[in-house]
């Protein structure tokens, strides 16, 4: 191989090489870092094979359920957290072994194509038949061989019903509705560019350079009318800094749980399109205790456990039964927050961009932020 992935060993070699004055540019630096097909295929025996090394976003699971799992199987759950998908990837690249991880759809696809995820035999996993039909054959995991869904989320606009007027059901409300100058865009390159693409009537994942140029023009027009670009809608909405926020539907549930006037916080799905995203359960190929991980996933999928988890995290899980009922209960005051089967059918999902397309999105967003 001419070029290799920067795993930790290669990084050290590369750095040390340069430090003594040997340029590395263009040199071979080892293997590509992809896992082996055999490691992916190896069947997992569903039994306790050690403590569970758990790697997830912070506060993205009901901690009581983790305690319940520890008690049930007499194991410890060793929790660590990431604060972004790229941060999760860099830990995995460094070779750290986790038993269960929660990649988003795009990252699950990347990990699968890099042979980094063990196969999960669904026939041996109870309750996977409850997965919504739209997630039975997801784009990111053909055949559903390596993952099972964890949560899903729709992107829209969260707003203060008691403060904001002039909403029309369009994404352009973000800059046009009367929000007292308290409007925020999500600091997320996919959501930002995706919103612009939908408004312009393009495919959500377009990489056409003319279209991206026009979407960039749209975003630059929105920018002067924004108060902020932030990835923390919960803080912005609960502190009163934001009355109108580009956000995920689950965040509206969390905001409503934290304020004294939950009925004033609403969610709007927009007519130009609803980006739908999802997170997954997965077991990395270098997991030391895949059996415990499989037991953990199965434990989380029991309808009554899933229902408790949905109530705690505020995000829907795409499973029939308890999970669906629990979320419907959470949003009964504002059914708009729900992701319906129709939304899933009409919604568009972000896909992985490749090569020049990826570079184009990155440059578009960087220019938007810097301009």
């Amino acid at each position, binding site marked *: 191989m001419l070029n290799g992935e920067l795993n930790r060993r290669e990084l050290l070699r590369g*750095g040390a090489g340069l430090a003594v004055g040997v340029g590395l540019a263009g040199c071979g630096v080892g293997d590509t870092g992809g896992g082996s097909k055999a490691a992916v295929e190896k069947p997992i025996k569903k039994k306790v094979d050690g403590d569970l090394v758990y790697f997830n976003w912070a506060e993205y699971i009901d901690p009581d359920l983790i305690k319940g799992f520890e008690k049930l199987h007499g194991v410890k759950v060793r929790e660590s957290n990431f604060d972004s998908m*790229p941060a999760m990837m860099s830990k995995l690249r460094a070779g750290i072994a986790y038993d269960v991880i929660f990649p988003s759809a795009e990252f699950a696809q990347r990990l699968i194509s890099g042979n980094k995820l063990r196969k999960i035999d669904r026939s041996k996993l109870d309750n996977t038949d409850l997965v919504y039909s739209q997630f039975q054959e997801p784009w990111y995991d053909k055949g559903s061989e390596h993952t099972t869904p964890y949560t899903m989320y729709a992107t829209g606009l969260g707003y203060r019903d008691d403060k904001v007027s002039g909403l029309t059901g369009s994404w352009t409300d973000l800059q046009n509705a009367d929000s007292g100058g308290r409007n925020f865009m999500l600091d997320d390159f996919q959501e930002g560019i995706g919103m612009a693409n939908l408004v312009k009537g393009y495919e959500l994942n377009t990489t056409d350079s003319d279209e991206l140029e026009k979407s960039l023009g749209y975003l630059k027009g929105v920018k002067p009318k924004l108060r902020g670009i932030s990835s923390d809608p919960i803080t912005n909405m609960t502190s009163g800094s934001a009355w109108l926020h580009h956000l995920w539907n689950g965040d509206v549930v969390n905001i409503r749980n934290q304020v004294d006037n939950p009925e004033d916080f609403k969610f709007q799905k927009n007519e130009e399109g609803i980006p739908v995203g999802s997170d997954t359960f997965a077991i990395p190929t270098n997991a030391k205790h895949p059996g415990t991980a499989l037991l953990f996933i199965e434990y989380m999928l029991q309808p009554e456990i899933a229902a408790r988890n949905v109530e705690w995290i505020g995000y829907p899980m795409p499973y029939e039964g308890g999970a669906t009922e629990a979320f419907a209960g959470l949003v009964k005051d504002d059914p708009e927050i729900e992701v319906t089967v129709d939304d899933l059918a009409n919604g568009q999902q972000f896909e992985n961009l490749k090569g020049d397309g990826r570079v184009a999105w990155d440059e578009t967003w*960087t220019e938007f932020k810097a301009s």
Partner: protein
Amino acid sequence: MTEQRFAAGFLFPGGLWLLAFFLVPLGILLAISFGYTDDLGNALYGWHPENYERVFDPVFVPVLLRSIGFALATVALCVLIGYPVAYYIAVFGGRRKSALIALVVLPFFVNYLVRTYAWIAILGDDGLVNGTFDTQIRFLNTPWAVIGGLTYGYLAFMILPIYAALDRMDPALIEAGKDLYGRPWLTFRHVTFPHTFQGVLAGAVLVFLPAVGDFVSAQLLGGPDEYMVGNLIQQQFFAAENWPFGAALTTIMMLFLLVWMVLYLRSAAREAQEVTA
């Protein structure tokens, strides 16, 4: 000879530390800055000098100028706030000097990120200040909030070197100044300030360097138009997954800061020579 060997032995742990945790990472950074990213988001080594060409894209010029402007404003505010504090502690602190210095350092026991979040709660539209005074002032998402956050974050780096310079100064010099001129302001201008100028300069460098590369203050307290170089670099690593471009930006930024650092060190060396001469 043995003395020299002894001295070299003393340098060894520090040298090893620098090699392992400064030079080697610096080498990795340089190597990555010429690399590229594959479809899986992995940073790969390669020869792509165009990463550096992109650094000089005119779209980044306002970001760089803004960062320098915010950092200079932060330095100025830190001098205005920090000098009187340091002066009070050094001249009037008496037996409580150490306790007062400890108070200056105390906030550093709490993470900078957490302290910045506290400012959101204090300065928010429905925050502590607006609630207490029943006002509707919009503090957050403004350049002032970002500069305020930076000043708050790095003030101690200004107070400590100025305090050290004032503490070292012979009080007899002030007495002599008063004997000759009499008025306090002239004594301060012609005696105290020049004698502690190196402390101010050291503080200015210690505040400027982290402030110009900071991303927390702009991210949490700023609006769409407060985007700084630190945010740009952070975005390449944690959002765009473009480590090579992030590394190229970092390298150029370090070279730029190095120029300031060398200027400061030369000035400090000249001062030291003048003192000993």
